[in-house]
């Protein structure tokens, strides 16, 4: 039996080819379009930037006159407290910040969707146990926990990604669970069951695809949260010392006293970069929410 059981129910599922029309709706939404454009700019910056303007962390200034230099033709965004080029450092930071944010979101979405689907599909004690765990992680303050874990397990990129990813899933799990609960009541799930489909097959064929469509908005907002979390952790001084992100740039700007010396070219760009990327994901995420819930429309 190779045909998609979900297709039998056709009309009742109300799932027309949504993906393309979603993107079109997003483009029609003024804020969504702004977000998409900002996203494209950030992606370009992170992918091409370090190739065109490679950052060499070892290339430190020769003498004290070369540190914290204001912007000039040689150094478009001046130099940092070690006399390195802030502009190429900024581009290298874009790559790390986006990479950590996306990877952490991937982990968080896999865990969240997994816990949510299993919990909502099997219900009963499985649901009780998983949701107690979810509620626990939902209320335990994330940043102190991330700081504790980061301080204990050391500072490298993988640890940071894992820590952020493992602490950002509870909301996704909650949303996926409630969607799964309502999906499993649908007729086509009952039909698939009566045709002898296994639980695994029903989840894979009839539940997961629909759930995935519904958590797009949430997932995009999670990226924004993960990028902010990385920036904050790195600012606290728990960033990977070998891989400079925007957050760790701000950490070094802060501890080296760049603010007191008025070196705005050092602490303005990374912050604006974080704002740009987080805002881009937030705008797109909220635009998706408006598409899913028309009552919220009228703001843009």
């Amino acid at each position, binding site marked *: 039996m190779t045909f998609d059981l979900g297709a039998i129910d056709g009309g009742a599922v109300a799932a027309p080819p949504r993906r393309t029309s979603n993107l079109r709706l997003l483009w029609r939404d003024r804020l969504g379009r702004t977000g998409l454009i900002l996203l494209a700019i950030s992606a370009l910056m992170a992918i091409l930037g370090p190739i065109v303007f490679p950052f060499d962390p070892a290339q430190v200034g020769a003498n004290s006159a070369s540190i914290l230099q204001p912007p000039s033709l040689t150094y478009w965004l001046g130099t940092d407290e070690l006399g390195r080029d802030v502009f190429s450092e900024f581009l290298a930071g874009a790559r790390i910040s986006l990479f950590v944010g996306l990877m952490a979101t991937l982990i968080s979405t896999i865990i969240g969707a997994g816990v949510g689907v299993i919990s909502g599909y099997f219900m009963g004690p499985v649901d009780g146990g998983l949701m107690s765990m979810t509620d626990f992680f939902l*209320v335990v303050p994330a940043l102190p926990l991330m*700081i504790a874990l980061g301080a204990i*397990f050391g500072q490298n990129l993988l640890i940071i990604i894992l820590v952020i990813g493992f602490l950002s899933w509870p909301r996704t799990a909650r949303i996926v669970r409630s969607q799964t609960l309502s999906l499993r009541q649908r007729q086509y799930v009952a039909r698939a069951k009566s045709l002898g489909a296994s639980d695994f097959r029903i989840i894979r064929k009839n539940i997961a695809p629909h759930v995935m469509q519904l958590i797009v908005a949430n997932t995009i907002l999670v990226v924004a949260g993960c990028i902010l979390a990385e*920036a904050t952790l790195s600012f606290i001084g728990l960033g990977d010392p070998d891989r400079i992100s925007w957050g760790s740039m701000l950490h070094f700007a802060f501890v080296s006293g760049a603010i007191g010396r008025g070196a705005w070219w050092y602490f303005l760009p990374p912050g604006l970069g974080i704002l740009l990327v987080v805002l881009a994901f937030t705008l797109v995420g909220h635009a998706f929410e408006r598409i899913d819930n028309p009552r919220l429309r009228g703001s843009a």
Partner: protein
Amino acid sequence: MPPLLRRVLVLCASIFAVLTFNFFLFHIIPGDPIRLIARSQRLDPEAVARLRTTYGLDGSLPEQYGKYLSNLAHGDLGYSFSLHENVADIVGRALLNTLILLTVSTLIVVIVGIAIGVFAGSRQGTRSDSTTVVTSLVFWSLPTFWVGMLLVFIFGVWIGGLPISGITTPNAVYGNWFQYISDIGRHLILPTLTLAIVDIAFFVIITRTSLLEVMGEDYMLTARGKGLSRRTMVWKHATRNALLPVVTASVLYISALVAGAIQVEVVFSWPGMGLLMYNSVMARDYPTLEACFLLTSVAVLVANFCADLIYRRLDPRVTVGT
């Protein structure tokens, strides 16, 4: 089982889970915690044994766990090796300072945020509504610590005029209580402003969304049919109902509030739990870090419990059932 008792039990279970989690976190540090504490590979066995006893790391794991719980029950949070003082004393002082900061900023954030949210939501589709939404989304996307850094630059370096560090002026002599309090008040301005700039946006967005949902309800149509004025409709009928989801959402805000406070305290050297946590990370002072994490988590669990009670009190519908 009565609902209240059930919630108290859940709270106790959560606190116990945090305690246990905390124990495993700091007692099963990868590698030997003693090596991390001593920051040296070469230690004579006698010194290692002494350090083990000092930090409660001797004996089997269940023994350590028992000792850990009994120490906690006696209010003994260990000894800070970077500050050379009992952690409980350090944390006590820091907690008070954090509470001052959080009380003032939360009051401002919640009141201003809800007011702006209702204002924007009741003018859905207008220019002032869309401006408010866009501004809120931009502000909510700002990293709190960076806003703090900008304010330090503006008010500490560029324009000047406001204190950018600490809770009081160093070596100040106060003639009376009022001077002392107003000095703290002046030091509170920038940290509070930082939290407000970022966090007000959260309540604006949540309140607006919730108000829009309520405005679409049938009873709002009835209210309009009765010929009620716009003001009465929005503030008396819609806002009251719209505030319920806002209370629920505040639970999520508590975690963001803690995160924001940590960052603000670091940037402005506000001597609270956040700065303490930062300093103990820098000094790798595990006993202090452990206590900070434990207390923050328990405080947040208790705050959640209270928010839940308030919610149940406000909305009679939820008391039935669970």
